[in-house]
């Protein structure tokens, strides 16, 4: 019972080995026996330039690239009509399907081939191989047996040892052990001459199985050992594994457990090595996956880097834009600032000048005012003295003196007020047509007393008809100042005269009227004259220090005349006199 179990086990193992042997035999056949058909097909392809695909197919078949072979032959099937060439094409397709293990299609392809095909033996051998693979042993055997072993030509196409071996395998599976033994021995005999150890191992193993099946253990063991020893040196891993397993079973059956154990261990070693290979493959796969992951990571890293770089670039761009904007705005504001500061500077200069004028004005005015008020006060005490001493005869003179001082002081204050009003643009100003002569008379009226006292003569030679277009009050301020100056700088007996302007008779504008205020007083230096006429509001120092005055009056006159649309010119010679030449408008612009 136990032995039977072992036997079944052994059969399974040996069957596996047998099947393997067939496939390996078929594989080996490609190298030698197919060379003949390839050469023949190659000749055909060479003769016909249209059969490029055929020559390609041959090359692919030699390199055992079966998929390419199928694709190329598919092309050929559509082009080629010649049945001779079709036989070749079908053969290659059949072989390709056979190698790929698609037996159904392989058989179909082989069945297309005509019986008259030169290599029909090969076709039959392949068909039988397929039946053997499909475990249809009777059909396989009937084809194998039909192959004529006496025709030497056949052995160019197929390996006779493989034929014998396959027949043996058929008999083995059909249970005809003596026939199987005969064919295996024949196969071994044929193989021995070829040094094909792989086939030899298979044959040994299969022969051993034949004996083992017939319970001829002694003979079987010999062949098993032979297969084992050969497989150790030449076999593939699976062969080594099978050989070791077979030995282990045999030793176990012989109750030599130590040896069996050793073989079993060896078998397991081979299994392990196979799984090691698998492991290595797995490791390689993992490594590959890791490498892929690593690559992926790198790609991701690069992508991220790129993104970062892009972001950085954008940041730089924004920064650059911002910077540019700042620069532009900065420049703009800087320019604005410069312009503004230039205006401010200009204004400041103007203001400084005005301020300086004001300061000077106040210093002079306060000084002059102080001295004149002091003089008034001193004169008043004298007056009081004289009243106490009852010296009435000289009282009148004293009073007159008081009056003169008071008038001068008043005039000065009046000028100051008007000057202030002019600076602040305050004050009433309305230009109208007025008779110049009237205005002069009105001004002169106030000076009658002083003129008499100083024994000065005053003449107004302006015709009543002469009209000026002016603000009367401001013009009167001018005239009052003229009068004041003329009186101040004239010695007793001198004369003051106002006459119509002949100064610019030649080119006198129709809409202009001029008059000359003339005195025969002390006059002034050219320097003073120019200073008085200069545009600067800077006040001039008087030539005559003793006299009360500040130069404010002349400045005021000039400003008032300008405001009225007029001009002022001065002619003067020291100790000869002064002429004030005034030009004014006759009528409002665009009228008269």
């Amino acid at each position, binding site marked *: 019972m136990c032995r039977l179990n072992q036997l079944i086990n052994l059969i399974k193992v040996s069957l596996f080995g047998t099947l393997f042997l067939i496939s390996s035999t078929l594989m080996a056949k490609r190298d030698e026996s197919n060379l003949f058909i390839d050469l023949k097909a190659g000749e055909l392809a060479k003769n016909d330039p249209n059969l490029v695909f055929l020559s390609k197919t041959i090359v692919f078949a030699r390199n055992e690239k079966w998929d390419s072979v199928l694709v190329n032959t598919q092309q050929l099937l559509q082009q080629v009509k010649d049945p001779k060439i079709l036989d070749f094409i079908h053969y290659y397709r059949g072989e390709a399907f056979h190698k790929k293990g698609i037996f159904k299609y392989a058989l179909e392809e082989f069945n297309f081939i005509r019986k008259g095909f030169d290599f029909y033996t090969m076709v039959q051998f392949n068909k039988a191989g397929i039946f053997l693979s499909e475990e249809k042993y009777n059909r396989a055997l009937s084809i194998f047996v039909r192959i004529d072993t006496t025709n030497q030509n056949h052995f160019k196409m197929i390996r006779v040892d493989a034929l014998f071996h396959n027949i043996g395998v058929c008999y083995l599976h059909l249970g005809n052990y003596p026939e199987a033994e005969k064919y295996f021995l024949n196969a071994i005999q044929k193989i021995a001459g070829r040094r094909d150890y792989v086939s030899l191992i298979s044959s040994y193993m299969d022969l051993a199985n034949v004996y083992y099946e017939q319970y001829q253990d002694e003979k079987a063991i010999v062949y098993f050992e032979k297969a084992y020893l050969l497989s150790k040196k030449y076999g593939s891993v699976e062969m080594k594994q099978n050989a070791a397993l077979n030995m282990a079973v045999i030793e176990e059956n012989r109750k030599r457990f130590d040896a069996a154990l050793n073989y079993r261990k060896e078998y397991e070693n081979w299994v392990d090595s196979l799984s090691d290979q698998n492991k290595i493959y797995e490791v390689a796969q993992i490594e590959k996956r890791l490498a892929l992951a690593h690559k992926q990571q790198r790609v991701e890293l690069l992508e991220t880097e790129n993104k970062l770089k892009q972001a950085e670039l954008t940041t730089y761009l924004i920064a650059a834009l911002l910077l540019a904007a700042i620069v532009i705005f900065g420049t703009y504001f800087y320019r604005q600032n410069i312009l503004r500061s230039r205006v401010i500077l200009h204004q400041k200069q103007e203001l400084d000048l005005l301020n300086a004028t004001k300061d000077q004005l106040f210093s002079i005015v306060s000084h002059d005012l102080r001295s004149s008020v002091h003089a008034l006060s001193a004169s008043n005490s004298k007056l009081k003295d004289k009243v106490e001493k009852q010296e009435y005869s000289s009282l009148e003179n004293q009073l007159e003196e008081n009056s003169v001082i008071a008038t001068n002081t008043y005039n000065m204050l009046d000028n100051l007020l008007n000057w202030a009003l002019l600076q602040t643009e305050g004050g009433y100003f309305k230009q109208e047509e007025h008779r110049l002569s*009237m205005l002069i008379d009105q001004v002169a*009226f106030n000076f009658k007393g002083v003129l008499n006292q100083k024994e000065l003569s005053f003449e107004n030679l302006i015709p009543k008809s002469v009209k000026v277009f002016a603000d009367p009050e401001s013009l009167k301020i001018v005239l009052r100042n003229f009068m004041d100056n003329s009186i101040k700088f004239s010695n007793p007996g001198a004369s003051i005269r106002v006459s119509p302007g002949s100064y610019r008779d030649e080119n006198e504008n129709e809409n202009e009227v001029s008059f000359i205020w003339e005195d025969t007083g002390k006059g002034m230096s050219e320097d003073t004259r120019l200073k008085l006429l200069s545009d600067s509001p800077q006040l001039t120092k008087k030539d005559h220090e003793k006299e009360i005055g500040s130069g404010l009056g002349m400045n005021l006159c000039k400003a008032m005349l300008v405001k009225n649309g007029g001009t002022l010119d001065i002619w003067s010679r020291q100790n000869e006199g002064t002429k004030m030449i005034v030009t004014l408008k006759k009528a409002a612009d665009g009228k008269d």
Partner: protein
Amino acid sequence: MEKIKILIVEDTVAESDKLIDTLTESQFDIVGVARSHQEALQLFYANKVDIVVIDIFLNGVPEGITFAETLNNVPKSARPFVFLTSSTDRSIFERAKLTKPYSFLLKPFNPLEVLYALEMAIEKFYDQPDTFQSDEEDTIISSEFLFIKKKGSLKKVAVSDIVNIEVEERYCSIFVGSEKFVIQISLTKVINLLDPAKFYRVHRNHIVNAHEIEEIQPSDALLVMSNKSLVPIGDHYKEVLNQFNIIK
């Protein structure tokens, strides 16, 4: 010839005294001095006033302007007036200007300036500018009076009192009762400004007040006026007589 009646509106006694002195000296008749707006109105309506001198600031407030506005707004009370002020402040002047002031008089003033301001006020009020200062004319004609400039002063003659006017070249002799005034005025102006319903031109050189004609002597072409003076009737002007309803 009568004096021109002036109402002074001035709160400062010293100022008003000075003004009174000046005006009296210039032959003006001061009808009164008002110290406030209220008083000014009373005096104005109680007297026949020809011209008003108004101080802008009364008791520290520009009430003078208010008074001037009142004068302007009541049609029959409209009179020429002069603003009197020491203020040169622009804003006050701007407001005063809205009342159509006829003249400004700035303190301190002398008689010439006062007279000038009054003349200007009258000239502007009756819209006959540049009359008193000119060499050619010295009279302004209103519906009631003739304002005449006489030697540094102004006088007036009631139009209704005029009997007849005799024109001699640039001069006009105006007969009022037994008096005769010579004024400078152009004949055209006289004719244009005198009421044509009362005054008729009867001769190239004569204008008569129709109410003062006492007798017409067509044979001699003479008019006998109420003051017994005789006025000839010019050949070209005879049709004028047709306007009268002569009882023959």
